[in-house]
């Protein structure tokens, strides 16, 4: 704060408030809509204060899905989403920390080749290779399975890069001291590298959890069986077309449920979230 400019301060707050309201508005409307009956929503304009159908709507979607469109119980879909959102980060972190360790702390033939092979995966998101990846999964018999849902998403190298970057900042002398102390490479990894990597892992976990939870295109392709739907897919399947024909109150309730876990993760782990975001892309 350089000088005192009360007018500019007021404008700053005003802009931020307007921005915050605009950003929060859709979510608020979503919540309100999820607590009303369909008739109330179909009125124009829709009421902007919460209604009384909260329990009824949520119970309906959690246990039985909507009555038109997808009939999958949202509870099942939440389970699928949770599995995906946990397996992807855990899988990614595990294989990435090991390969980053190998690439940084060993010199071996083919090291550069492996490094570039992994590097290349950063360049092509899954959306670009959907058809053939689908074919590979079909050939391997992994359609409609958790393995099929998660494995292609574990393949990208964002985590490897973050770990590599972090390992480069560990002072050389630490490894030398460990070597003098008689520690072999895996001992060094377990006793020194792993504990020091905890904040990086937390940051990665937050980002990858959200990434895994919010996946859309890939689960869309690979699951045809309703029991394997994730909640994000489930919402889409509830919308049968046109706007009058949808059970909006149920769709909105499902949307709230779909937004809640990642939002919780962001809120509770905000510090790691910001760190993970800002450092992943650098």
């Amino acid at each position, binding site marked *: 704060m350089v000088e005192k400019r009360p007018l500019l301060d007021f404008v700053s707050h005003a802009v931020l408030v307007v921005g915050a309201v605009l950003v929060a508005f859709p979510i608020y409307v979503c919540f309100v809509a999820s607590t009303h009956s369909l008739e109330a929503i179909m009125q124009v304009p829709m009421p902007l204060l919460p209604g009384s159908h909260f329990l009824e709507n949520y119970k309906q979607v959690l246990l039985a899905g909507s009555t038109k469109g997808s009939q999958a119980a949202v509870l099942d879909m939440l389970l699928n989403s949770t599995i995906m959102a946990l397996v992807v980060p855990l899988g990614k972190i595990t294989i990435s920390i090991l390969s980053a360790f190998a690439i940084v702390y060993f010199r071996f033939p083919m090291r550069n080749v492996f490094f570039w092979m992994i590097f290349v995966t950063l360049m092509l998101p899954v959306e670009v290779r959907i058809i053939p990846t689908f074919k590979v999964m079909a050939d391997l018999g992994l359609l409609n399975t958790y393995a099929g849902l998660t494995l292609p998403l574990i393949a990208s190298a964002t985590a490897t890069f973050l770990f590599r970057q972090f390992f480069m900042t560990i*002072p050389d002398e*630490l490894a*030398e*001291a460990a070597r*003098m102390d008689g520690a072999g490479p895996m001992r060094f990894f377990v*006793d020194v590298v792993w504990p*020091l990597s905890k904040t990086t892992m937390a940051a990665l976990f937050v980002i990858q959890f959200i990434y895994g939870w919010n996946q859309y295109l890939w689960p869309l392709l690979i699951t045809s069986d309703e029991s394997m739907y994730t909640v994000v897919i489930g919402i889409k399947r509830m919308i049968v077309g046109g706007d009058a024909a949808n059970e909006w109150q149920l769709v909105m309730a499902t949307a709230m449920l779909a937004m809640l876990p990642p939002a919780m993760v962001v809120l509770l782990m905000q510090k790691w979230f910001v760190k993970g975001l800002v450092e992943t892309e650098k």
Partner: protein
Amino acid sequence: MADVSLRDVRKSYGAVQVIQGIGMDIADGEFVVMVGPSGCGKSTLLRMVAGLETITSGTISIGGRVVNDLEPKDRNIAMVFQNYALYPHMSVFDNMAYGLKIQGLAKAEIEARVQRAAGILELSKLLARRPRELSGGQRQRVAMGRAIVREPSVFLFDEPLSNLDAKLRVQMRSELQALHRRLGTTTLYVTHDQVEAMTLANRMMVMNGGHAEQIGAPLEVYSRPATAFVAAFIGSPPMNLVAGRMTADGGAIEGEGGVAIRLPVARPALAGREVLLGVRPEHLEGCAESEAMLQPDVDFMELLGSDSLVYGHLGTNKQGARVAARLHTSVVAKAGHLPLRFADEHLHLFDPASGKRIEP
């Protein structure tokens, strides 16, 4: 405890030879300091003894056993790093115990050794702390503690005091001396600070560009430097070195621009020869004009209290033959010529081409 032997040790990175044939026998219990300017190879040499760098040719032996191909952990050595290299997530106790745990020592033995080292280094109350909660001096002591508990044959120190402030450095120097007196372990110590070298060493190796210019006890290196480099490196302010040609009678040297220094004792054998004449600032005394061997023009002075440093030049070229003298403050003139003389035993002569000492 063991002796250390370096025989024609060399190291090359590709075509560049960074360590050029160093040899030295270090006796059991000796404190040897390797000193020299940045890039002279002293740390590389230390790391070769430690096993952190490979040896291109030559042998390094510890306790009579050639260790060229042994891993650091098998050489029975311990190292203290310049920036301590403490494991940041472990307590002081765990930092010191780590190597012992890997060796598989019994818990009771580990406890005993750590407590003993902590006692020697006054760390007993800090054993539960993390490194980030300690001051620089405390961290340095933990690093030393980690080395002590291994009860090695040789201690290796890589510029351990460089990261400490001046006052702390003086204190740690005396602590290191006390430690060495107490434990008597053979020690190799690397530093760029010649004061540390002079005060700590039993013997020192002055290094330059990958080779050893001189190996000897501190006082010997100080009073009989083997080369002009050593002469200028040891001592603060550095030894005055003036280039000139010996006169026909060997009684003085004369240089460009009217530079002239009379020798206390003539050396006719060196008549006509090009030399570098060296005399330390602390060995110059003020005198009467008639007795003066050199009379520099005074450029500026640093009044340090009882002593003063006077900086001047000989001859007409201001940037030419620069001379410094450390004199009693009462003797110092304000400006103009300063008549100075020195004793013959404090005269040093070096060959300008090779830098080597010329015996008088």
